[in-house]
């Protein structure tokens, strides 16, 4: 989870006994543990789920359509007789993949944009005004507009959501970098004659990885929700490929006759987003002492 950091931001350079102390702090943080467990569970189901389903996510079985949940079809079947559990599991692949990719891409782009903006004044003015422009649109509206321009396709969902969420990451990185930039050790580097590259990438970057990681988890959750919303509106993952959003869309018209078609994918989305948010909140408490939660 922290593999992209040159030195793990969870353990910003610690000796062995301090590291075990940090591990204990993680274990004692109930939010990280709860969120992590939920996510692990979902991941596990996403991986082994396909082995547990009676039929594939695309196999239609017209005589058996709209069956309520039973021991064979745990989540029931949809209006084409497809097993809903199989579709939710298959949809999890799309949703998690989209969420993870978007989190990764926005982290990369946001890190570069945020650091450059924090360090170079002219770049700051230009970049931040552009990002402000992007942020002025409601996320879902901008995503729909981009999808309309690019065409309805799963890869384009990732592109659209990355564009939508990058400004948020860039802002966080920029503000953290601005704080670090004022530290004396950065001035000292300038006095030593260090290049901008060295100051920015070797010395400032590692210091903004913690807030970046926290922000990335929230982007992960947000993009899963937004992807579901896009698919629900028909501007996301195109059917018949299942995603949590378009399963909800299929179930919308039947909500009074087949409640399971909306309740199960809906619950799944809720659970995953809850898990990620727990994890993100817990990580924030662990990594950023300024946001210590008040509850004990």
């Amino acid at each position, binding site marked *: 989870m922290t593999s992209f950091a040159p030195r793990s931001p969870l353990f*910003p350079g*610690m*000796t062995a006994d301090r590291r075990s102390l940090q591990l204990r702090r993680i274990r004692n943080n109930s939010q990280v543990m709860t969120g992590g467990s939920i996510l692990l569970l979902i991941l596990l189901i996403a991986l082994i789920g396909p082995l547990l389903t009676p039929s594939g996510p695309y196999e239609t079985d017209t005589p058996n359509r709209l069956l309520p949940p039973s021991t064979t079809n745990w989540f029931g079947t949809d209006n084409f007789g497809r097993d809903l559990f199989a579709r939710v599991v298959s949809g999890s692949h799309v949703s998690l993949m989209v969420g993870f990719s978007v989190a990764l891409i926005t982290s990369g782009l946001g890190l570069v944009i945020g650091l450059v903006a924090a360090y170079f004044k002219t770049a700051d003015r230009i970049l931040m005004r552009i990002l402000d422009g992007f942020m002025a649109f409601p996320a879902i509206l901008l995503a729909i507009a981009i999808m309309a321009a690019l065409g309805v396709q799963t890869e384009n969902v990732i592109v659209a959501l990355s564009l939508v969420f990058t400004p948020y990451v860039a802002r966080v990185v920029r503000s953290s970098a601005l704080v670090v930039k004022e*530290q*004396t050790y950065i*001035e000292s*580097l300038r*006095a*030593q004659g*260090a290049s901008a590259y060295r100051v920015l990438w070797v010395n400032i970057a590692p210091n903004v990885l913690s807030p970046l990681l926290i922000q990335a988890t929230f982007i992960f959750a947000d993009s899963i929700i937004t992807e579901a919303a896009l698919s629900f509106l028909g501007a996301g993952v195109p059917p018949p490929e299942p995603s949590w959003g378009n399963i909800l869309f299929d179930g919308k018209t039947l909500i009074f006759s087949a409640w399971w078609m909306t309740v199960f994918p809906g619950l799944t989305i809720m659970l995953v987003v809850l898990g990620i948010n727990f994890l993100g909140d817990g990580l924030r408490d662990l990594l950023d002492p300024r946001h210590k939660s008040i509850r004990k």
Partner: protein
Amino acid sequence: MTPQPLLEVRNLSKSFHGRRSGDAKVMKAVDDVSFDILPGETFGLVGESGCGKSTTGRALLRLIEPDSGSVSFQGQDLLKMPRKQLHSTRRQIQMVFQDPYSSLNPHRRVGVILDEALKIQYRLPRKQRTERVHRILDRVGFAEDYYYRFPHEMSGGQRQRIGVARALIVGPQLIICDEPVSALDVSIQSQVLNMLHDLQVELGLSYLFISHDLSVVRHISHRIAVMQKGRIVEQGPTDEIFSNPQHPYTRQLLDAIPASHPRLARERRTALTTPVS
């Protein structure tokens, strides 16, 4: 009779504007400042906080670009120097900062911080760099395993010694010490000051010693300049400044030093209240 100065500062000025340039409020942080630093000499710059001492120090290194004046180091003007040459001149002039906590990157090991200082200025194979880092650590009194320490595992005094080592490792002739001991306990202060003094004797270093603490400056400086509101109001040999201050502001500063004995304090009070006849 006088040896060639190492650093000649002439008419250095820097003013800060309000929020926008063209604002009526112009703060003259450094106003027409001139002084020389001789080889092997410690030049003390004293004054109350906000009088422009630190800005002067930073302007010399172009960490803040001064508005006008000249800073010539070994006869060459730092302010007119092209980037490349300025970069290599930074080997000669280094800086030690006030706050030993924020002046070391918390994410980097001490050895890496020192190695980086070397890497910025010299193209050396890793082995030679590591060797030099170990040598400098030893010179400022650390055991070998401190190479792998993180700053947060060290005390303020230890960190400041690392700060000095970082300046020293590139082989400078002049070190600008910006309140190097103000953040330290008094007992640790003398330890760092003595180290600075020993290094000076051993390596022939010059210091620009910026401080608001007169007793510290008196202890270490050969000559002193007193700054008030961006201007140097008086400068001269340390003994002269302390025994026979000319400018009223200097006298004010000297009077502000707490007396070491009650009788001295009483004498000083009567001296102040007795009218000059």
